[in-house]
Each structure stands twice: as C-alpha cells, then as structure tokens.
C-alpha cells in the first residue's frame, strides 16, 4: 500500500515514458505539421520530467537547471519550427507532412 500512497521515482519515470510514447506517436502518425510540433514538445517535456525527478531524488540542483534550459530552448525551437512551417506552407500550400517528400529527390 505504501507504494501506492507514496509517490516515488518510478511514478515520475512512468509518466515521463508515457509522455515520450505519446510524443513519438504524435510525431510519427500525425499529418499536420503543427500537431507533429506538438508531439515534439511532448517529448521535450517528458525529458524535463525525467530531469526534475532525478534532481528531486538526488538532492542536487543540476536537473532543475537543465530543465530550465530545455524550456528556453524548446521555446526558441518552437518559434523556429513555426517559422519553418509557415515557409513550408508558402511553398507547398499545405502543412501535411505526408505529402511533402521532396527530400527524396
């Protein structure tokens, strides 16, 4: 019972893994580029949960600091990604990633 009532490291890690799975799933299956970007944000946040959980149970502040950096970089990445998506839309008149395959050429 103790294990159910007390929130331990494993709970955090499980949540993080689930979040990662959802993120990956979204990245791999969604057609809309913005949704894909959302999946990427999920993955980043899964990583953040891991950092914070290990930081809390290790007693140091490094994990927290790293998570902060990740949030900042994720914000910058989202801005750049949205700019890319707008450009893609300009060129292909679509944000459907399955129809954009000019990389193979």
């Amino acid at each position, binding site marked *: 019972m103790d294990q159910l009532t007390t929130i331990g490291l494993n709970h955090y890690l499980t949540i993080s893994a689930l979040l990662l799975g959802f993120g990956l799933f979204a990245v*791999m*299956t969604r057609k809309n580029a913005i949704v894909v970007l959302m999946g990427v944000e999920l993955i980043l946040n899964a990583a953040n949960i891991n950092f914070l959980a290990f930081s809390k149970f290790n007693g140091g502040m490094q994990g927290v600091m790293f998570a902060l950096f990740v949030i900042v970089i994720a914000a910058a990445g989202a801005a750049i990604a949205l700019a890319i998506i707008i450009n893609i839309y300009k060129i292909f008149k679509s944000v459907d990633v*399955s129809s*954009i395959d000019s*990389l*193979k050429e």
Partner: protein
Amino acid sequence: MHSFIQLSIVVLLLPLLSFVILIFFNRKLPRRGDFVGVGILGTAFAISATIFWQVVVQAYDPAFRVAWDFTWIDLGTVPGVGPLQIKMGIVIDNLTSIMLAMVTLISFLVHLYSTGYMKGDKNYGRYFAFLGIFTFSMLGIVLSDNLFSIYIFWELVGLSSYLLIGFFFEKQSAADAQKKAFLANRVGDIGMWLGILILYSQFHTFSFQEIYANLAAGKFGLSNGWLTAAGILLFMGCVGKSAQFPLHVWLPDAMEGPTPVSALIHAATMVAAGVYFVARIFIMLTPDALHVIAFIGACTAFMAATIAITQNDIKRVLAYSTVSQLGYMVLGLGVGAYSAALFHLVTHAFFKACLFLGSGAIIHATHHEQDMRWMGGLSKKMPWTFATFTLATLALAGLPLTSGFLSKDAILAGAIGFANVEGGGIFYLIPVLGFFSAMLTAFYMGRQIWLVFFGENRAHLKPADDHHHGHDAHAAHGGHDAHDLHQEDHGIHEVPWNMRAPLVILAALSLFFVYSPDPLDGARGWFMKMIPTPATVVGAANPQKGALLGGVAAPAHAAVAATTETHGESAAPAAGVHGVAAASHGEEKGIHTYPDPRQAEIIHAGHAAHYTAIYISSAMVLLGVSLALIVYVFGIIDPDKTALAIRPLYLFSLNKWYWDEIYDATFIKGSMALAKIFTWFDINIVDGIVNGVATLVRKFAFLNSGFDKHVVDGAVNFTAFTVNTTGAVLRKLQTGKVQSYIVMLLLAVFGYFVFYVTRMIH
C-alpha cells in the same frame, strides 16, 4: 684503251642513242625523225668501216685481237657460289670487225629502205626506234667478250625482234607470231643459260678467254660428258635464235613483221647471232657436241628446203630458204668448217637482205600482194628489182661467180672431208643432205623467179574471196591507204631511189670478187684467210680423249699463234689423206698445225674434197635449175598434176612437215592440259586449304563470340542487373518523408538496443 675499243663503243651506243631519241621525241621531229635513224646508222657504219679497214685490210693479221674489260658488278665472295664478279668487256678481232661492218651496213640500208617502204605508217617513228634498239642489241652480241653480257644482249635481241615482228599488232596473226617467236626463243635461251652455268660452276668466270685458258689447262672438273652437255646446251641458244630444227617454227611466222624487218632479222641481226655465238664457243665444243650440231644443221637445211618448194607466199619461201641456209652454217660449224660457215654467214647476209628488200619492193609495188600465184610478168615493170633479185637468187642457189657459191661450196667440201675422216656411213648423210638441199634451193628459187617475174601477170586470176591477206595488210598498214590510192593510178611501177639503192649495193656485195679473186675457190679470198679455224681447247682439256686421239696436249694460245699460216696452198688435192699423221702432213704442206689431230685431219680432208664438192654441187644446182626450167618455163611437167600425183608428199611439204600441228598437239595442248590440272589443283586443293582455314577460323570466331556474348557480356550485365535491383530496393527506403526516417531511426535504435541487450545477457 685502244682506239678500236673507243670507236667500237661509239658504234655500239649510236643505235641506242637513235632508239632513245626516236622513242621519246619522234612526234616532235620533222618526218617523225627518220633522218635521225638513218643518219646515226650511216655514222655507225662509217666508223665500223674504218675499224674494218684498219683491222682486216691494213693489219691483215689472222691472229689480230684487241680486248678491254672492266668489272661491272663485284659481289665479293657469295656463300655457296664463291667469288662472284661480273665483268663487261669488248673484244675486237677479225670476225668482230667483219660482223660490225656487216651489221651496221645492212642495218643502215634497211633504215634507208624503210624510209620508202614504211612511208605513211602511223607508227613510223616508233618503227625506226625499234630498228635502233635491234641493231644495238646485235652489236652488243658481236662485241661482247663474255658469256654474261652476250646473254644480256641475246635477250635484248629477243625483245626487239618481239617488238618488230608484232609491229602491226592490231593484226591477230602478227600478235601471235611475235608471241611464238618470243616463246620459241625462250626455250633455246633456257638451255643456253644452263650451259653458261655449267661453265661458270667450274671456272667462276664468264669471260671466253679465261674459260678457254682454263679448259686448255685441263681444269674442267667434271667428266667429258658434262663438257659435251655444256656445248650442246649453249648450242640450244643458237637453235632458238638461228631457227634450227626443232625450234625453227617461229621464223616463217616472223614474216608478219614489216618486210625490211624480215631482211634485218634474216640477214644481219637475229639469226646471225646464233651462228656467231656458236663460232665464239667453237673451240670448246667436244667432237660429240659437234656431231650433234652437224646433224641438226643438216636436218634443218634439208627440211626447210623441202618445205620451201611448195610455199606460195613470196616471203615464206625466202623464210624457209633462210632456215635452210642457217642449217648450212650450223652444219658447217658442226663439221669443223669454221671459216666456211662464217663466210656463208656474211655472204648470206648480203644476198638474203637483198632478196628480202627485193620482195619488199615487189609487195610494195603490187599493193601488198604476197602470194606468188597472183604475180608474174614483173620483170619489165620493175627492171632494177628484177636484176638485183635475180643476182641475189643466183647467189642463194649457189651458182658460180657468186659469193654464195664460194661459201656454200666451202661448207660442202668441209662436210665431205668430215664424213671421210669420221668414216662412218651415217656421217655421209650430212654431205648428202647438204647437196640435196642445194639442188632443192636451186629449184625453189628458180620457181620463185619464174612465178614472180616471168609469164603473164596473173593478178586478175585471184579469186575474189582470197582477198583476206592483202586486206589484212591494208587494214594493218592504215596510213598506207593514201599511198596506195596514188599507186592505183599508175599500176605496178619501180620503187623510188631510196628503196632501189640498197638493192643495188647488196646485189653488188653478192658477187664473187668482193670476197675472192678466184671465182671457184673462196679459200683464196681474204675472208677465209682472216678467219682461220681456231684450235680446239677440249683436246687438251681432256687427257683421256686426247690420248685416245693420239693428240699432243698443247696450250690453246700457242695453237692460235700457230694458225697464222694461210689456207692459200690448201686447194691442191691430196690423195690418201686417211691414215696420214695429220700434224706432220700439215707441216709438210705448209698448212696449219693443230694440237688436235682430228681437227687438222678434217680441215685437211675438207681442202682435199674441194673439187669434188665443186663438181657435185654445180651438178646439183644445174639439176635444180633445169628442173625449175622444165616445170615452170617449158611446162613439160605440169606442177599441179605432179602435186596431185604425189599428193601426200605435196601436202607434207605444204603444211611444213606438220610441225605446227605436232607442236600444237603436244606442247601447246600439253601446256593447256597442264594448266588445267594446275587450275584444278588451284581451285580444289589450294583454294580448299584456304577455304578450310577460313571455315575453321569462322567456327572458332563463332565460339569465341558465343563466349563473349554469354560469359563476358553476361558478367557485365549481371553486375549491372545486381546494382539495378539493389538500387530499386533501396530506393524504396528513401521516401523523402521525415516521418518514415524517424521510424527507421527508431527501428535502428531498437535494433541496436535488442542487439546490445542480447549481448549483455550472454
């Protein structure tokens, strides 16, 4: 260098100059350059006459001899042959100087005559050019001092005779005749060359003088039979060139050439070369070789004489008479009557040239009629031709007071003497054939004179369809047409002066006093004194033979020196020649001394038989002439009926003993059959081999191409195919979609994870 040598080089090269000028520039010169040829030959004759005068008349020395030579080609020592050095040289002795004068004189006269006879011919200039090279070649033979250069000029004579015999080459018969002459000569020349090689193999020199010196010194390393063979092989050259049996067939056909050329061939240049050559090699001929030569000469003389009596073509009769007279010369050489044979060569040259030029005049005047049956009665219309022709005929028949009598009688006397010495019954055949031929000669020449010059003109009797001969001649002459038309207006008339003058000169040279003060004995004349019989070198060369004959082996040069005595005293008949030791006998009488007793005996016996020969030959000639008179003048015997009565004999003679047919059936058919066999061999065997190889190569190539196509190309294509397939598969992976790449990335990470975990577990 002796001045004679220098002069003779000039004489030799002048006709060549004429040839070169005329062959290249005759169209640029006025009158097609005929004056160049005539002028040059006139000059050559003048120089030759100078040499003749100084050698024969002024020096008057039977042993006169000037020689000069230079090394032409020096090949050093040739492996398997030994030292090979080819020299060229000139020798001038009495015989050479006489021949020089004779050849250039006759050639000059023929040139002069041709300016009239060939007038208007389209190849007029070329004709004179050919005459020039013909004369040049003959002079080369006359002047040569070695076998090699004689052989070169010998072939040149063959070439120029080929060119001139086929001068009217548009005519098929002329083209055939020239080929026939060339081939028949070639047969003889092969033999001659083999003979030269036999001598060369022994002595490594071509020079006459060196060969004879070696022979006299007994250096001939092979058996006596080889020496005889060498002699007979060399004689084969003469058989071809001088138209001896069995290679005589070309000469009558050579009548297809222009008539002045016939005169040149028959008198001075071609046929004389053969006899001259045998005279040059006379001293190395063994008795056996001489016997062969004598019999061939006798057969030729007789056979040709029997053919001549039935021929109807005026030139053919003369052609066969030439063959017959050449037979006499060869017979004379064979029996050892050396001087007489050469004497006959010269006298015959003049009267035969006269006869041919005379017949040319007749042909010219009668618009190319050559058949005697349609002539007749020409004596009044052509008095000059008639007179000269008759005189030359008398000389040919051998009537007294002519040159022909002197020389022919000397030969026949030699033949009798030879038969007496040899003693065998078969050897008497030679003088008998000789005398019989003399009779036949008188008969057929009488017939010719009568048919051509006497009686009524029978031109109108000529059947219309028998026109082809004259017609052909017209077609071939081409340019003559205008000339002929001009003549039709006047009918038959005497020829112009430039054709008449040679006739007169030649006829004058057929009289006895040119050669001898005694009309019955040529031996008293300058000619036979200047050309003594040289001593043989083969008696000394072969000790066994010499011992057999009881001879004294003395060097040849000493013998030549010993022959300076003259024949003058020799006419005295001496009974009982046989059994007398000839050498001592000769000394007693003040005649020659020979190291070879056989030779001495023969010459002596020949002198002894002199009067016998005169009686028999005169009787024979008279018989022949009277037979001709009986048949053709008095008409007591009808020639046509006689011919019918002895038809097989008549046909045998008319068809020239069927020699052409025999050769056609044997050699020509044989060559054709051989050619067919070779053709078969070529087509089936040689071509078969070639085709077989080709098929093999093709098969191999086919296999090779299979390998190439399937294995090599297969490997290449398979590589390409593999790459292609791999590419096709891998291309599918590159979708260009970011999401699929992420899937692959995940899969790779997963795969690595599984791999890593399994590694960790184990």
